[in-house]
């Protein structure tokens, strides 16, 4: 059904730790819905459990018994079809022995005929502006370019939902602004749902329809701040708009208190 949410979490609990040692409860009673085609950011202090939440949505981390985590109506157990994850650390997420194009092609191998694979790879690389670097080795690219390769790889399988864990956290401000705009273009062009983890309040507000704030130990969603700025957004105009400033103010308030 068209009105079904993309993601639905009810009473999500998650703990971390080794299989034998003591486990630590990181998320307790986390509940939210994310609509199809929505852009939602998740914010919170370092160590609060953002990555754990995203890994749970990705099916890489198992939620505790009793939690409800659904993607597209189906309970998540293992990476669901139609979900791509962009990892925080691009250096360890690309295969250094494969070229840019071969990295992007990896999720398609054995699943699509060669012709279609080629065109999908070309399309994905074009979306991130790396069409001319398809034969390069990852180590020949800058950090921003490597992260774009990772985004292209995530896009190649034409995901219904794109999960991103602080994808621009390690980049300089200019590169970051570039990639934010590129992501917004991709978001507009593909209509994919995006769940975006970040430390950066401005980034969260600039990109999102809604910002979720995690806080506490164990963490819960303590605030949901909608961002009313119209799309398409541009770095200069949007960041000066009253909707942007208001949403930024509210997120700031929630995170740093009054």
């Amino acid at each position: 059904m068209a009105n079904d949410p993309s993601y639905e979490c009810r009473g999500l609990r998650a703990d971390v730790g080794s299989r034998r040692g003591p486990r630590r409860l990181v998320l307790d009673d986390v509940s939210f819905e994310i609509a199809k085609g929505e852009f939602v950011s998740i914010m919170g202090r370092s160590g609060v459990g953002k990555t754990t939440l995203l890994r749970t949505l990705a099916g890489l981390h198992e939620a505790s018994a009793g939690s409800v985590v659904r993607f597209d109506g189906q309970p998540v157990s293992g990476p669901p079809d139609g979900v791509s994850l962009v990892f925080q650390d691009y250096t360890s997420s690309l295969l250094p022995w494969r070229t840019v194009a071969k990295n992007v092609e990896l999720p398609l191998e054995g699943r699509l005929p060669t012709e279609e694979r080629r065109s999908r790879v070309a399309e994905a690389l074009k979306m991130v502006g790396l069409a001319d670097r398809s034969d390069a080795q990852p180590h020949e690219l800058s950090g921003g370019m490597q992260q774009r390769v990772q985004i292209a790889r995530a896009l190649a399988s034409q995901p219904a939902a794109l999960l991103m864990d602080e994808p621009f956290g390690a980049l300089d401000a200019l590169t970051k602004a570039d990639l934010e705009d590129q992501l917004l273009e991709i978001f507009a062009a593909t209509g994919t749902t995006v769940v975006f983890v970040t430390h950066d309040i401005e980034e969260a507000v600039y990109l999102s329809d809604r910002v979720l704030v995690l806080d506490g130990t164990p963490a819960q969603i303590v605030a949901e701040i909608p961002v009313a700025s119209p799309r398409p957004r541009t770095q200069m105009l949007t960041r000066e708009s009253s909707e942007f400033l208001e949403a930024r103010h509210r997120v700031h308030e929630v995170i740093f208190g009054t």
Partner: protein
Amino acid sequence: MLLALAVLWEVLVRFKVAEIQFLPAPSEIATAAQDALAGGELLGRIAHTLGVTILGWGIASTIGVALGLLLGLSPLAYRYSMTSFEVTRAIPPITFVPAALLVFGFSLKMELVLVIYGGIWPVLINTIGGVRSIAPELRDVGRMLRLSRLETIRKVVFPAALPAILVGLRLALSLCLVLAIVAEMVGNPAGIGNGLISARQALQPALMFVYVIVAGLLGVALNAGLRASARALLPGNVVKDVAAP
């Protein structure tokens, strides 16, 4: 450098400066080498030792890599096998020569078994190390891209561990040559090792030195061959530490 050493050696022996019994001059060694080459004996022995080394190394590598991938990927199997490995590995393979002789007699089988057994260890240990040091993120990448278990091993784990595996293969190759020669000296009457012993027994020191030099050259050639094929078969950034001399 080498040439100067040869000349010095020649001079010392010729003019009886160093009067060491049975120490042949380089010229005598060269003559002996020519004779051995002409008789076809030298080439035959080289072929035998080279063949056994490469065959044994190939089998050892296959077993070592396969077992190493398995143990590296399974924490449970790793925990249970590591203690016994540490003990077994500490025993120098050469000490198994008498046992291998008893079981297999003076035969090619005995030589091969020794070469394979010794060659497995460096490959196995390096493969396990390589697999276990793969960034955990890379495994998540494999899961996230919906790679099957086999695809993950073939496309992610194996290439990521390849630099470590190549180090193991290289160590194993040198070791296999040494073990083949030792086995030929004490067990299987063939190849360079046996040539060495026969030359000594026949009181032909010059010929003995021919085999010593040939063994050294073989080691260098095998190593160079491995490096060249690694360079030819693999992309540059994987080979770096193996291609270093």
